[in-house]
């Protein structure tokens, strides 16, 4: 059986449908990306798989065990790094790791070795006796990851692993994630950052409003959704965004300052139409720029909405 198998998994929060009958599976050894905008249902899905949120409908198998019926077995073989770095602030890095290990019943000697190993791996040896609350954001994130690995889980859930980190820390965390995965760990990663997903994951599933709307490798997704181009235009006079949106071939139109940004499928005919509209108003185009859509715009196209 695959590492994670999800069948019609559904979550209602008091009638609000947060995750809507999703099904997918993750293979052993895979670095799987779960991509979606804020509120899409990523955290809810992860929490259902880890037993931190009740499953409303459907079922799942994590490492072959069902979180509904064999939660304790699931908990033994998974590690979760939640979206907040929630270790104990008053405990030192060392004490935090030891406590996590104790709770999994790891023998003292083995645990001490493991804790040293993890501190070295995450480059936190010099912070061994610092309290968790004294660490920087990036260091907190890394220690939270380390604590999820003390018991050598088979599957690691990473919920927004690089949220709030600067470029350098983010890259450090990315290379850690790659290294863990290369050593055979199955990783389920959620992110709202398309670059993170495209950079890191072998396979990506896109979720929006609780529904899976696309899945595939980064290259497949890019190919599938990159048919569009971005056209930036501005005019010498007034023209409304509603009118521009109605032009055939315009997928998305947004306004920034005096110019319009249009995601278009057929740029030539759209430009012709724009020129036509301008002429009928006795104004003219004074700026035109056409370029291929970047990863971010591909993502926005997939989820079908514009986050200005």
């Amino acid at each position: 059986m695959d590492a994670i198998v999800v069948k019609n998994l559904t979550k209602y929060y008091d009638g609000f449908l947060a995750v809507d009958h999703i099904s997918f599976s993750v293979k052993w050894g895979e670095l799987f990306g779960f991509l979606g905008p804020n509120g899409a249902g990523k955290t809810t899905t992860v929490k259902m798989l880890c037993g931190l949120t009740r499953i409303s409908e459907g079922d799942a198998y994590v490492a072959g065990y069902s979180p509904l019926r064999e939660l304790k077995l699931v908990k033994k073989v998974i590690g979760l790094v939640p979206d907040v770095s929630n270790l104990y602030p008053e405990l030192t890095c060392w004490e935090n790791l030891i406590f996590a290990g104790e709770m999994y019943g790891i023998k003292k000697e083995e645990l001490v070795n493991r804790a040293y190993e993890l501190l070295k791996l995450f480059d936190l040896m010099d912070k061994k006796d610092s309290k968790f609350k004294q660490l920087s954001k990036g260091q907190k994130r890394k220690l939270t990851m380390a604590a999820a690995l003390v018991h050598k889980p088979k599957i690691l859930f990473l919920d927004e692993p690089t949220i709030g980190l600067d470029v350098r820390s983010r890259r450090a965390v990315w290379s850690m994630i790659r290294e863990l995965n290369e050593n055979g760990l199955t990783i389920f990663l959620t992110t709202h950052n398309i670059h993170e997903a495209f950079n890191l994951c072998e396979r990506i599933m896109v979720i929006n409003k609780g529904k899976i709307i696309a899945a595939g490798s980064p290259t497949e997704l890019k190919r599938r959704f990159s048919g569009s181009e971005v056209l930036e235009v501005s005019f010498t006079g007034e023209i409304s965004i509603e009118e521009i949106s109605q032009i055939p071939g315009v997928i998305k139109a947004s306004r920034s300052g005096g110019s319009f940004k249009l995601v278009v499928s057929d740029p030539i005919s759209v430009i012709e139409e724009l020129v036509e509209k301008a002429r009928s108003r006795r104004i003219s185009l004074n700026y035109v720029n056409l370029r291929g859509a970047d990863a971010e715009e591909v993502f926005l196209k997939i989820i079908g909405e514009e986050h200005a």
Partner: protein
Amino acid sequence: MLDEIRGAFYIAKKDLKEYYFKPPTISWGIAFPLVFALAFLLRGWEKDWLAPGLLTLSLFFGSTSMSAASIVFERRMESFERLLLFPISYLGVAFGKALSSFFFGLLSSTATVAIIWLFLSIPPHNMMLLMLCIVGSALQFSSMGILLSFAVKDPAQAMTIFNSIRFPMMFLSNIIIPVSKLPHYLSWVSLAIPLTYSVEAIRYALIGSYDIIPPQISIPVTFISFFAFLYLAAIMIKRTIP
């Protein structure tokens, strides 16, 4: 089973490390009962009546302050979820949290015990029984504290809410005023308060007499209520899962 108990002890150890020196645990858990004890001593109350009350009181405030600090704080920081991720049952988590409060209650009441010893010089009526009653009461209070912590949403108000429950309990149990001297309708309220039983148990073990509840009832009640509160706390923990 053994795994669960071991896990609970690790939780307790972690809690003690983390919260022992938090201001609310110190002020409400140690300082307050101490000041209270001194205030009563200075006013010269009848010592046979007062000693068991003060001992129970310090156990009560000590064992409940710790859970207020730890659970309410951890729930806000979202680190309480960590405990639910370990392979331990909800009952195990509740027991771990109760244990840390229990140990803290025992530790914090030593100061009060010393005072009783020094100033009141009361030799315990039955030492073994007294220890049993202290253990039973501290367990009862700590599990009650845990239960209460789940009712508190805003950590800033945790102590206010705790005290708005603890103080009435303190006055309605027979720590200060004997139940036998309360108006009839209030004595019924008093019998519904767990504290009444623990103070009666401790009173008997310390001075060999009681107000209205005989030790054959009061002592078992402290232990039974501990198990009941613990079980309810486990249900509350389960209910925090959305």
